[in-house]
């Protein structure tokens, strides 16, 4: 019993950190997946990586790396928010592809420069894969603070975000201040992804953003319910993945991704059986 308590005390920040990251990115995912721009997460988090790489090259380390990372993420998010598809005549997904490859190019150029200047690139390599098991209460506090801002934003701009998720064009047609709310959302997205990115990694963050939202959409309808379920499933993914990895002695990041993907699969099965039950024939295609 005492061993379990010690184990829990040791790993509590990791578990809480995983749950907070999952809930936070799950909430973000509802909008990003709802708007069919899942690539936004990858694009912004890799821009943060590029920022962190160059910050590290200039001698920054530890929490200070967040500053250039956040700057990279915000610049990219603002570029995406300010460029209107109608003006640029480029689809937002194509634009994200361009920015993603550019930020990846910059990040790897920066990583290449570490060798040239005889510097260690361990700091930034950890960012790519994340280091959840090294998560400490100071990280959790920062992640929780950003998550609290995120919740406040969703509460304050609930109806605007619902309209924007449906369609930015329809929202604008109804007189919603789309550019204003959308820009704040993008900056907040940059902050959430940057803060969580150093703990859970640039690759894993994508699954924690997309999978809980996708599962929620299969299970419930309604804006508020989707947000609630996505946050719950996100938290469950972060926590559950870690527990499984600890018990089975498997890589934590991989287990979180597999666990959250399994939740999507189970949700799809529930959705199928529910629709089959409603139609009585089992021939209704899945949404």
């Amino acid at each position, binding site marked *: 019993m005492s061993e379990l308590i010690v184990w829990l005390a040791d790993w509590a920040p990791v578990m809480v950190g995983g749950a907070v990251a999952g809930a936070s990115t799950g909430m973000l995912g509802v909008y990003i997946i709802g708007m069919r721009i899942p690539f936004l997460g990858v694009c912004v988090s890799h821009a943060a990586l590029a920022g962190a790489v160059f910050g590290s090259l200039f001698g920054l380390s530890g929490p200070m790396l967040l500053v250039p990372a956040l700057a990279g993420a915000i610049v990219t998010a603002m570029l995406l928010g300010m460029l209107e598809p109608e003006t640029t005549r480029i689809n937002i997904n194509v634009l994200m592809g361009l920015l993603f490859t550019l930020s990846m190019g910059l990040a790897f150029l920066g990583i290449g420069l570490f060798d040239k200047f005889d510097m260690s690139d361990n700091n930034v390599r950890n960012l790519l894969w994340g280091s959840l098991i090294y998560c400490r209460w100071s990280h959790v506090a920062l992640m929780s603070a950003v998550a609290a801002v995120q919740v406040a934003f969703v509460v304050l701009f609930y109806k605007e975000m619902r309209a924007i998720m449906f369609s930015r064009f329809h929202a604008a047609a109804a007189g*919603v201040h789309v550019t204003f709310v959308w820009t704040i959302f993008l900056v907040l997205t940059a902050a959430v992804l940057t803060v969580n990115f150093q703990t859970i990694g640039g690759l894993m963050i994508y699954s924690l953003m997309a999978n809980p939202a996708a599962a929620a959409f299969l299970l419930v309808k309604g804006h508020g319910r989707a947000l609630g379920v996505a946050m719950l499933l996100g938290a469950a993914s972060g926590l559950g993945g870690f527990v499984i990895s600890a018990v089975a002695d498997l890589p934590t990041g991989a287990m979180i991704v597999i666990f959250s993907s399994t939740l999507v699969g189970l949700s799809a099965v529930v959705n199928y059986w529910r629709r089959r039950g409603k139609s009585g024939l089992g021939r209704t295609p899945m949404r």
Partner: protein
Amino acid sequence: MSDSVIQIDNLEVRAGGRIILSVENLSIAAGESVTVLGPNGAGKSTLLKCCLGFFKHGSSGQVRLLGENVPRLGAAGLSRLRRRVGYVPQVLAAHSEVPLTLREVVAIGRSGIAGLLRPLGQNDWRIVDEWIDRLGLGQLAGNAYSDLSGGEQRKALIARAMVQLPELLVLDEPTANLDLFWREQIVGVMDELFRQIHMTILLVCHELEVIPPCCRRVVLLEDGRISSDGTPEEVLTTERIASLYGGSLTVVHNGDRHAVIPSGGMER
């Protein structure tokens, strides 16, 4: 001061190095039901977007909507103006993933009016429910919008526009991709709105059959220019429609409804 809801003077829109819309003068008075008709690419949707301030780049001339000089409005001014206009775009929007219910989609119409940082109140939801019922969608209010048929989605978008309690209703091809049943349903809705609440309606379409009985003015748009403006009987002549769409077409006026009957091969 005129009572024009829309007043356009010397509007010119350029895209890709050519003029895609050139309207010398167009005035729509309050209480009118007007249809802008023309083939694909005639500039109908561009005209609507100019009126609502969605098409600012590459345009010149004056567009006044509900007394506001649209090209001079900033983002906040445009948002305020758009709240006074119920606009039903051609695009249905919402992907299959979006988990919103029909009631939530209709409530989008109240989102701008309620203002920033204020949740929708009881009165907003009462208006939302009232219009859902009025358009016969009460049974579907809790259903996912993405599960609705195309016709039901179109009605929901009209309800979304109507909950704004607009001074003007603008519909862009509201029957696109709908079958005959739903087309007649939408035509019926437009006619009822005009007759029951004397709503000023601006409809854009390319089919004569979509023109509602209440419409007593048709503006024909051809290659970005107004080629004719008058009553449906004056504008929609067999000669004009045949020359516009090509081939042997016969226009039939049956009371307040209008239709085209193909009577031979198509030539353009």
